[in-house]
């Protein structure tokens, strides 16, 4: 396919798979996305690990972690379970939601299915409510072409306010560009302006007041705005987490490599 000359340019950055060598890292990147969009395939090709991939939704139910080095910067890559939204409460979705909320990833890459973009964008919009450091990877471009679909990523980037990069994880097409973009979003060389629900004046005021209270209650909480919206919405799970101190615990613990399983499952690759 038409790979841009930059991708093959020798001056271009070099990718090194780091496998499980993630005890030292400079950045954390989370891979989110709907089920079966090829997150694990991208994860494997970047880290050189063999996280089991399978053509069915729900293959990954825990998070897997691995590392890669790009342009001399070491990244820890966290493969999250596939989810359709961040609003519901099954355990695999909660793993994803908690990590995006409190794992303080430097960048969240939302892997989307080019052949079913509309449904995938729901999650993108929800992730953008939480963090502004988002890169949308429009995966399965080969399948889209086969189905006679053309995805205008420039229009997509413009509408979303975050970069959208077309890739085919299976062949590696576009992956270099994706990695460069991740780097630039983290270093804020690319300024994102995520599209967020602005709502009415009352809504904005209510969100502001409530997020102020949340920050007062739990200092260092990274996503007070999103939590405020969830509380206004009456999200029972978030209310419960606030009342029983779970939220505060999550903020304290999430940064640690808390899921003992994760490295083991990444290694055995047979989850």
């Amino acid at each position: 396919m038409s790979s841009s000359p930059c991708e093959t340019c020798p001056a271009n950055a070099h990718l090194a798979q780091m496998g499980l060598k993630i005890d030292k890292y400079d950045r954390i990147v989370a891979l989110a996305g709907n089920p079966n969009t090829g997150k694990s395939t991208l994860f494997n090709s970047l880290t050189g690990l063999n996280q089991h991939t399978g053509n069915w939704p729900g293959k990954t139910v825990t998070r897997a972690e691995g590392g890669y080095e790009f342009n001399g910067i070491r990244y820890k890559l966290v493969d999250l379970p596939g989810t359709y939204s961040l609003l519901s409460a099954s355990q695999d979705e909660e793993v994803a939601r908690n990590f995006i909320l409190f794992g303080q990833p430097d960048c969240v890459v939302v892997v989307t299915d080019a052949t079913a973009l509309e449904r995938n964008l729901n999650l993108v919009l929800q992730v953008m409510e939480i963090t502004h450091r988002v890169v949308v990877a429009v995966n399965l471009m080969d399948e889209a072409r086969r189905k006679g679909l053309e995805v205008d990523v420039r229009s997509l980037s413009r509408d979303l306010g975050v970069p959208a990069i077309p890739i085919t994880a299976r062949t590696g097409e576009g992956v270099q560009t994706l990695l460069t973009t991740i780097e630039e979003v983290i270093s804020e060389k690319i300024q994102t302006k995520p599209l967020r629900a602005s709502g009415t004046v009352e809504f904005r005021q209510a969100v502001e007041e409530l997020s102020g209270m949340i920050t007062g209650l739990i200092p260092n909480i990274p996503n007070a705005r999103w939590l405020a919206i969830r509380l206004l919405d009456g999200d029972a799970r978030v209310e419960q987490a606030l009342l029983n101190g779970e939220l505060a615990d999550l903020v304290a613990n999430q940064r640690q490599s808390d899921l003992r399983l994760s490295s083991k499952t990444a290694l055995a690759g047979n989850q």
Partner: protein
Amino acid sequence: MATLSDQNLTPQDVLARAQALRPRLGAAFRDEIVKSLYGEAERIARRAVHRLEDKKWDLDQRIDRIVTSPVWGLPIMLLLLAGVFWITIVGSNIPSQMLANAFFWLEGVLAGLFTNWGVPWWITGFLWHGVYRGLAWVVSVMLPPMAIFFPLFTILEDLGYLPRVAFNLDFLFKRAGAHGKQALTMAMGFGCNAAGVVATRVIDSPRERLIAILTNNFVPCNGRFPTLIMLATVFVAAAFPPVVASFVAAGSVLAVVLIGVFFTLLVSWALSRTFLKGEASAFTLELPPYRRPNVGRILYTSFIDRTIFVLLRAMQTAAPAGAVIWMLGNIYVGGASLANHIANFLDPFGLLLGLDGVILLAYIIAIPANEIVVPTMLMVYMGTGMMTDLPGLDMLRTLLVGQHDWTLLTAINLMLFSLLHNPCATTILTIYKETRSAKWAAASVIITLGLAFLVTFTTASFARLLGWV
């Protein structure tokens, strides 16, 4: 106000404030959020995605029309499964035979060498007739079927067929009061029950998740498939003319799988009406596009992740098991070996189930890994001094039928017992970790073992009542 009393702000205050603010936002606020989300997604997608050519009929959809149709879905599924078993059985027969011959020839040579060097008999016996023989059995009985079955299974998985299986079976699970996604976790169980138990995390409702966990063991895992395939080939099929033997073997493995699915549904139904009462919840199952399987990926997954993984695990347990069996068979108390004593003690109970004492002893020794039940059993039979050498797999039948009074009932009940009995140690541990409850982990053992006893006892009694054995 909140800003003034930051010091003693409590979560309750925040919640109360949220509740107070909510009415100001208007009644439709909640729907607005979701609606604007969907509307925005639709608008953006419509602008970004263009259909270049109107392909009148998607090939995927055309295939799905057939493989998930109410009429053809289930028959196609059964045919595919039967085909996979048949290829495995036909293909692994000769390599198994060759491996067994080679390994046991080597055992003879090496043991002879040790004897010539003047190594004490018990070291030679322990090492070569114990540990080595255990390993040799595991490799020759299990490696060929696995090397054929796993790639085939992985192709189906990579192709995207498994979610279609779940789709076809959904209505059955719903009727059993369980979650439709249980069909998916059940399919995962065919790979490994421990993995199937972990996979139940995709089920939201704790009630339905527990049902899925407790019943996952009723589908035979990769570790038990070789056992079933071997029993079907050597014992069940051998009772039929050679022309149809391989079909009978494939058919009986398929029958065992169907019985497993039947018990999954039955136990799910019983649980959802007694201890875990409730209604089945609705869910959306996405049928992923069919994808051309990636050859390298399939080979990696089926050989490294599955074949080597299962084989290594089996060998790790087979070596010590082989040593234990050799010792049980060679330590004599009061004129008979320990193995004989234990087997004789278990015999009445075993016979009641249509099995015998040796089989039960083998199951006890093989609790750490189901993979080694048949090798263990054979080693106990041989270790009891009835037979010192076994030249090949074709002799197996002669040995067991001729000298240990095996009947068709023994083989069938052994297959049933292998299907229904308790999960392996790894799975039990996984259930404990996932449910965080020793009670449910124990329940998984009691339910499965109880059912295994009940079913084999029933078939044995029936067979005897009707004078078949």
